[in-house]
Every structure is written in structure tokens, then in C-alpha cells.
């Protein structure tokens, strides 16, 4: 990973925020929990990796590439989700918006005959618009984001089925009507001497931009402030509604981006794609140390959490261990991450 610096919530100047305090060792563990987890999984991976002629398969460059490629789509979504969860919100529509975006991408390029750039821009705009609508409904009518985005999930799947006419859409490449520009297929390839998956590059670049936005901009501080104490934030002049709408626009954008990556990786768009991704993304965010209560979280943690889940799945499969074990292990990790956070919150006197 590029930078190892994790910023904590820049405490907004609100009365209830605890003043500067001694560094609690447990809090440190929580702050770095997903990185620690990633290191532990990696060590476990090395120990339990099958070996061939002395080579540790887990560390084989191809295998590392498999791991980071496989988590790219959910990773991109988890990055958007981190913003939303820091504001104490949730977005359940992300997987469905990925499916919708993959279908629209495929349709526009195949039957629409739109070029590559207009297609990508249109799909990203659609994702942002989808998020803005959800955010607006949620803030305007004071509805739980859980409910609004649950409706959004259904709406996106429905729209995807309408757009695709209940069919899956294959993308064929070439020059001419009904064919997509071959350059789009690069999303499924690897660069730098066939080592680094392009999907992963998209994921990491997006993660880097998001980290900067969250940790160094005024908007980032607003996001923490809204999640930390909404009323206090409102009193101190934070445009709460705007911030909330913006974070759903970000998840919409992220889902659309993941949908484009999906269509390019798999030459395919289907209304059923991305099912359950919202839960994988939420798991990665929580393991990454972001609290569902809002107000605290870390982007680097989310990235580490995402890769950790991928590495875990990989090492279990290399050893031919059933998916059941993977699900149980993931469950244990989520609970452990949440318990650690809860302990720290209690020590800080924040209650539950």
C-alpha cells in the first residue's frame, strides 16, 4: 500500500467531542485493525500456502495479481461506502447500480453505437444522478437512508431489466456498428509486463483520490462532522443536507465506475450482476475500522479490509477448503472488528 498514514476523525469543534486525550493502546489497535488483520492473513497465507518445488504459491506474483483483481469491484464500491458510513448513513443500492451500469455500458456501446468516452461519461453521470436522487429523498423527507437505498436497490434492478430487455448483453469488440472499441477490453488485462491488473489500478487510483479528499479537504472534515454530531455540525455552519447528498452521489459514482470496470473485465452486462456486493462492501468498511455510528473511519483501513477479505478467500481456496469455512471466518472477523470498536467507544465514554 502506498501511504501508511491513517488519519483519525478531525474532531469538529463541537461541545460533545472529547478533548485531546492520552493515546489508548486499544484505540491504536482499532485504528490499524485492518492493516494488522491484513498482515496476519498474509502471514497465515505464507504459512499455510501450498508449495510447489519450494515456491510459496500464495506469494506467486500471478496469485497476488489474482487477489487484487478479484477485489477491485467491491473495493471501488467500499471506498464510496466509507464516505456514506462515516456520515452514519448506509447505501444498499450499490450492487444493483453496478448491475444497471454494466447493462447501460454494454447497451450504449453495442446497440447505441456511442463511443467509448461518451458512454463512460454518461454512465458515471447516471450513477451520480442516482445517488443525488437517493440523497435528496432521504434528506428532504427525513427518511432513513436504509429505507431509501433499499428502494433504490429495487429500482436499479428493475431499470437494469428494462434496459436489457431481460437479456444479458455480450460485448464484442471490433470496428463497426454493434461492436465496442477494442481499447475498452483493456480493463480485463494486466499492464507492466502482464503483472498488474488494470481493474486494480482503477481501484488504487480511486482509493488514493478518495483518501486525499477525506483527509485533507474541507469536504472531508464536513463528512466527519456530520457523522460525529449532526446537530452540532448544523449549528457550526456545516451544510449538512448538501454533504449528505454528496456522499450518496459519491457511492453512485463509485458503483457506476465499478459497473464500467465490470463490463470491461467480463465483456458483458447483466441485470443480475453485483448481487450482494453491498454487503461485501459494508463488511470491508467495518473491518477497516469505520464505525456504523458515524464520525470515525479510515479510507486506508477500507482498502486493507477489502484486500484482506480477498486474501482470505484465496488462501482457503488454494488449500481446497470449502466456501462454508470462508463465510464463517469472515463472520468471525466482522464481529471481532465490531467488538474492538465498541470497546474503544466505551473507553472514550461515548457509550454504545
Amino acid at each position: 500500500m502506498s501511504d501508511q498514514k491513517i488519519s483519525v476523525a478531525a474532531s469538529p469543534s463541537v461541545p460533545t467531542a472529547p478533548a485531546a486525550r492520552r493515546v489508548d493502546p486499544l484505540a491504536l489497535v482499532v485504528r490499524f485493525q485492518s492493516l494488522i488483520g491484513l498482515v496476519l492473513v498474509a502471514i497465515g497465507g505464507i504459512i499455510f500456502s501450498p508449495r510447489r518445488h519450494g515456491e510459496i504459491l500464495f506469494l506467486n506474483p500471478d496469485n497476488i495479481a489474482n487477489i487484487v483483481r478479484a477485489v477491485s469491484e467491491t473495493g471501488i464500491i467500499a471506498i464510496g461506502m466509507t464516505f456514506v458510513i462515516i456520515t452514519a448513513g448506509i447505501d444498499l443500492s450499490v450492487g444493483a447500480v453496478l448491475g444497471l451500469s454494466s447493462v447501460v455500458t454494454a447497451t450504449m456501446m453495442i446497440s447505441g453505437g456511442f463511443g467509448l468516452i461518451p458512454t463512460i461519461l454518461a454512465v458515471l453521470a447516471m450513477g451520480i444522478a442516482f445517488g443525488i436522487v437517493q440523497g435528496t429523498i432521504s434528506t428532504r423527507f427525513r427518511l432513513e437512508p436504509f429505507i431509501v437505498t433499499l428502494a433504490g436497490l429495487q429500482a436499479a434492478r428493475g431499470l437494469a431489466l428494462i434496459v436489457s430487455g431481460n437479456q444479458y448483453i455480450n460485448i464484442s469488440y471490433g470496428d463497426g456498428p454493434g461492436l465496442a472499441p477494442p481499447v475498452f477490453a483493456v480493463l480485463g488485462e494486466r499492464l507492466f509486463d502482464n503483472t498488474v491488473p488494470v481493474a486494480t489500478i482503477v481501484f488504487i487510483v480511486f482509493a488514493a483520490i478518495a483518501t486525499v479528499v477525506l483527509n485533507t479537504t474541507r469536504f472531508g472534515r464536513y463528512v466527519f462532522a456530520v457523522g460525529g454530531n449532526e446537530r452540532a455540525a448544523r449549528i457550526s455552519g456545516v451544510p449538512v443536507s448538501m454533504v449528505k447528498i454528496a456522499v450518496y452521489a459519491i457511492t453512485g459514482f463509485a458503483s457506476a465506475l465499478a459497473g464500467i470496470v465490470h463490463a470491461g473485465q467480463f465483456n458483458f452486462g447483466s441485470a443480475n450482476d453485483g448481487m450482494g456486493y453491498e454487503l461485501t462492501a459494508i463488511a470491508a468498511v467495518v473491518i477497516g475500522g469505520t464505525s456504523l455510528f458515524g464520525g470515525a473511519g479510515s479510507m486506508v483501513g477500507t482498502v486493507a479490509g477489502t484486500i484482506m477479505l480477498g486474501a482470505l478467500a484465496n488462501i482457503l481456496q488454494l488449500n481446497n477448503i470449502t466456501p462454508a469455512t470462508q463465510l464463517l471466518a469472515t463472520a468471525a472477523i466482522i464481529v471481532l472488528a465490531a467488538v474492538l470498536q465498541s470497546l474503544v467507544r466505551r473507553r472514550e465514554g461515548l457509550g454504545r
Partner: protein
Amino acid sequence: MRTTLRGSRVLRAALLAGAGLCIAGSAQAAEPLVKACAKDGQFVIGFSQANNAEPYRQHVNDELTAAAKDVPGFTLQIADGAGNVNTQTSQVDNFITQKVDILLISPFEAAPLTPAVKRAMDAGIPVIELDRKTVGDPGKDYTAFIGGDNYKIALEAGKYTAKTLLPDGGETAVLEGLPSSTPAVERLNGFKDGVKENAKIRVVAEQAADWVPDKAQTAFAAMLQAHPDIKVLYASNDMMAAGALLAAKGAGKDVKIIGTDGLPGPAGGIEAVAKGDWAATFTYPTGAKEAIEMSKKILLDCATSVEPTVTVETTAITAENAKQLMGK
């Protein structure tokens, strides 16, 4: 991330050179598909399954496991793609990393899994596709395809309806699988084309029930409300036929139900037909035995080529033969 490629090719060359068990024939003889093949060798077969959650696919896993057990040198590894093309792609990549000797795959969808299959072929691993194909031609883009033909199976069911169940015509309905999935589309189209043989038959309702019984029950109950005269229901899999039966019973209607898959066991379609609950079910053979046979040819008998397409035929399971087939 490290970006250096280690000498895996050198390694593979050494491996192949070390496997000097191959035919010592003339230099002109065609190469065997797998150079490390040997009568008494130990081999790993990786099976990339689309989705273990579907009972039919669990049935495939069971048959494959049983067939592989009979071959002393074979170890079968099954990875569950969980109905997700991304997961399945990474599992195929993992099998390539492990250098399994043969890759069996039932791709969840065709186009998305095509690049992964190509990577396996490029790595020198023969790929046998089971039940579903990726894009390209068997024998060229992948080693072989073994499976049934969804469209043809549903076409048979349609013809059976046209000729045997409703010779005098009447109303029929279809329960479709997951909309926009390949088998759902093929089975729907097949049945509709099959009943066209009888001009007096009308398909009055089609609803998607995503392969699952509870949705099928709800959907068929609604269909019967709207069209009380439905005489035959075609369910695109056995699970949905089971759900539809509950709806028909609830409505007090005697509807002739046709399933698809012909699963064995107490909850399967064969038993339902034997009990007289359904009119028929059309088997969707797994091809598991054929796949293991083909693996034996490649790995143990050092085959230089195999049949690129093996179509396993459907069997119509009706009141006449269901009882005999129960024990099988």
C-alpha cells in the same frame, strides 16, 4: 506488489522434462494433450462450479465426486463460484496458479468467463466445459464441451405438450428461471417453439420465478387467478415445478406440470412424476461420468485428441418410466 515474473516457464519445462513417462514414439507422433500423462500418475482435477446453491449443481458435484473416487490417481477439487462471475474468474485463476492437470468448468455466464478459460488453455491446462459453454469453439478455444442442450430439452417438453398432453389444444403457462440468464432464456424459447407444433395451444402467461420454489408458488398462484383454464405448466427447473404444484393444490386445480432437470432423491423430479404429482420432467444430464471418462483418456491414456463436443441426451421421464428410474 512485486512486479517481477519468476522463472515459472523454466520450472514448467523442468517439470515436463522430468515427466519422461510419455510415449517414446517417433518424433512425428502427435503430442498428447497433457505431456505429464501416465497410467499410474497422480492428478488434480479442478472443477469450477457456477453456483453450489442450486440443487442441480450440487447434484453435478455429487456425481463428479463419485465418478472421480473410482479413479485411484484422481483428486477432485471443487470451487464454488457462488453465482458471481468475478468470484468464479478468480477461482479459475487460482486453479491455474495451482497448475491443476485438468480444468472442468461450468461457467456461470459465457462471455465473462471466456478470458479465464483462455488463460488456462494458454497455461497448458486442458479445459473441459460442462453444461455451459464459454465463447468460442470446442477443440480450439477450449478442449471440449460436454452437456445437454437447454433449448432442445425445452423444445422436447413443448412437443410433448403439443402431442401427448394437450392434443386438443388449450392454455399453457411457463415459469422462467432468472431473467436474462442463459439457461432461462434458452428454455423459455425452446418450450414456446415446441408448442407451436399444435396451433390450438396458447401460452397465456410467462413469469420469472428465478429458479426457486417459493417465487414459483406465488407466481403460479397469480397465474391461476388470472387464467383459471391453464391446463399445462412448463417449469424451467424441478424446484419451480415443486412450487407450482403447491399453488395448483392450493387453488384446487388439476394442472399437468412439467419439470426440467429430473433430479434424483426424495425431493427430486423423478419421484414427483412417479408419485403422479407431475405429468413429466425432462432430465438435464450432468455429463459428470463423461467428463471423468474424458479426463482419464487425457491423463491416463495420453490421448492426443478428444471429441470436442459430447452432447448428453435428455430423457423424458413420464408416468411410464419414472418408477423404474427411481432407484438409479
